[in-house]
């Protein structure tokens, strides 16, 4: 039933053409989420050179270099050339690059990213270039300059931007994700509150101060607001937090419990689960303001809706209408309900940006007294073929796709407590992003 992972991924996904010539390697628009390891171009990223003697240069340069390396490594589309293979001379300017030295063994790189960083009167200046070192005739692919206040967060920000330039240029037209954010629930203040962090786990910040329980944060496509469900005095309500104003916004209240909001990718609609009409929750659809709600499902124990972000014409959701929860898909008007999973305990669907895949959490053999074996799976919707993403490590739940469709963030208790982890959609590059308190329900921003 479950074939070798690579076989299925290759079946599912059109791969980027294997090619050593960078100029031709990333044309077309494949529906890829994964690039097999052996086909990745080799990228060398020597540390940027600290260009000034300002005492801030060195620490900011360290943060910048770590961040840039991680971003390019995490992208999952490059084979990073280990630094031990690099020549002694580190270039800080294009004139210092000895192209054949980088293009031949030992580095044997296809691509070279390099540059310099300096602090000048409180400003951080960064210059960065990307060279195709196999193309000795015309190696430069791009060159960029950045200037921000000389702060650690800005060193990270510039590194993210430069990484996204490189990935956007080489990643088959799919923009990089280094500037994306992850929203999640953390208990580290004693209550479950909504927090945000950079996609790599840096810059973790508390957003809400509800003091009761906040759950299921879902950021709006334009990243201006976060919808979540909050425990009010005598019910759960959909609540809204403005990232622009840094405070809660008022939002339509409904009777009953209202939970698990989900944005359409155009930001005009919110789907959510509510018990406003009956004692059991159903999926409802409302405007982004919460007004004009209408009921989409008539089953029971319906929860966790998510739009197909490619079309907004379909909604996946979870229902316990036949017993244990299973994943269903319906049209966005509630018609044409199809059951997608057949057995076990299937929850927490997340629809891939290209509209073709569903990530979900599945305990295949769920039952009383059985613990564990709860993993993240990816289903190709058209064929219903399934690939297992995580293996035999605690309980894994709430997958959420990165904007480029190459990564998945999820919660796992594999380390003892629930924490947020990210992984490439081929199962590699597993990283723990949170460590303080218990952290759950990650939601990756749309951009």
């Amino acid at each position: 039933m479950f074939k070798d992972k690579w076989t299925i991924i290759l079946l599912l996904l059109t791969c980027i053409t294997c090619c050593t010539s960078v100029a031709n390697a990333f044309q077309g628009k494949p529906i890829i989420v994964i690039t097999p390891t052996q086909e990745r171009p080799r990228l060398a990223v020597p540390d940027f050179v600290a260009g000034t003697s300002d005492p801030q240069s060195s620490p900011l340069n360290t943060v910048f270099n770590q961040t840039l390396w991680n971003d390019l490594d995490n992208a999952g589309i490059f084979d990073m050339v280990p630094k031990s293979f690099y020549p002694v001379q580190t270039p800080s300017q294009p004139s210092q690059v000895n192209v054949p030295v980088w293009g031949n063994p030992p580095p044997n790189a296809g691509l070279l990213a390099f540059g310099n960083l300096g602090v000048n009167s409180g400003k951080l200046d960064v210059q960065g270039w990307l060279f195709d070192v196999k193309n000795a005739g015309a190696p430069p692919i791009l060159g960029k300059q950045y200037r921000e206040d000389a702060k650690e967060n800005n060193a990270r920000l510039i590194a993210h931007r430069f990484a996204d330039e490189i990935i956007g240029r080489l990643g088959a037209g799919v923009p990089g994700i280094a500037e994306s954010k992850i929203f999640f629930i953390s208990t580290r203040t004693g209550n479950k509150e909504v927090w945000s962090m950079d996609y790599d786990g840096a810059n973790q910040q508390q957003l809400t101060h509800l003091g009761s329980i906040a759950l299921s944060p879902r950021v709006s496509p334009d990243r201006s607001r976060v919808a979540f469900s909050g425990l009010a005095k005598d019910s759960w309500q959909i609540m809204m937090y403005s990232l622009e104003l840094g405070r809660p916004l008022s939002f339509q209240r409904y009777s009953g419990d209202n939970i698990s909001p989900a944005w359409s990718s155009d930001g005009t609609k919110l789907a959510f689960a509510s018990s406003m009409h009956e004692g059991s929750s159903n999926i409802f659809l409302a405007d982004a303001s919460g007004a004009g709600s209408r009921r989409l499902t008539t089953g029971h124990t319906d929860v966790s809706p998510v739009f197909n972000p490619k079309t907004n014409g379909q909604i996946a959701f979870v229902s316990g209408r036949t017993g244990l929860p299973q994943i269903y898909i319906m049209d966005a008007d509630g018609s044409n309900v199809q059951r997608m999973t057949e057995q076990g305990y299937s929850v927490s669907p997340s629809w891939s940006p290209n509209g073709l895949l569903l990530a979900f959490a599945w305990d295949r053999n769920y039952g009383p007294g059985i613990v564990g074996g709860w993993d993240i799976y990816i289903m190709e919707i058209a064929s219903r073929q399934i690939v297992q993403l995580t293996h035999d490590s605690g309980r894994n739940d709430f997958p959420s796709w990165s904007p480029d469709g190459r990564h998945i963030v999820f919660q796992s208790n594999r380390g003892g407590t629930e924490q947020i982890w990210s992984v490439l959609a081929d199962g590699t590059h597993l990283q723990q992003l949170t460590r303080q308190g218990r952290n759950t329900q990650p939601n990756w921003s749309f951009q």
Partner: protein
Amino acid sequence: MNHRKQWVLAVLLAALLVLAAGCKKKQPPPPPTPPPPVTATLTANPASIQSGQSSTLTWSTQNATDVTLDGNKVDVNGSQAVSPGQTTTYHLKATGGGGTQEATATITVTSPPPPPTPTPTPQPTVSDDEIFARSASDIYFDYDKADLRPESVQTLARIADVMKAHPNWIIQIQGNADERGSIEYNLALGERRASAAQQGLVQDGVSAGQLKTISFGKEKPICTEANETCWQKNRRDHFQLMH
């Protein structure tokens, strides 16, 4: 074996017949004597009680073969504790060869003195919460189910009685789930569990306006160990009197 038994029996029977024939002797019947007179007494001690107390009936007869107390056959001599709700006369009837004799005893029943507090008024030391909590124990559910168990139906009947006696009370029914499922699905499951109790209480005659529901999913466990005993404690509806 059987043949042998029958043969022995036949011989014995023949011998008895010979003996009986040889012994037969005619005697004159004795002169008839009048049967002894039947006597009967019945006493109640004490003869006067308060409602709810008991008295002892004691009777004795002579020369009686058939004795009834209020129509029920009893021993010829005996006693019995009774606790009549009102003044009652008991009949003893004794029958023998010498005729029939009857006896009666009356127990006078008086009303008890009024209790110190004749009308039940709420005692200031007992709060509404405590009164409610006496009836409203948690009800429990099977794994991934929201069906009411038989004992839960009984609990709901008790809660319904106390709610109907306090029509101004409003309660919140809080549905809960164990830790194993997913956060969002468990909220929906807890919703169904709260709703199941709500429907049961409405069927028992409680006004729907007195009943509110909420689900806490697995967010408010009362037990945090990872075993079935603990999970069962968390798969529950809790009933909270609202103020």
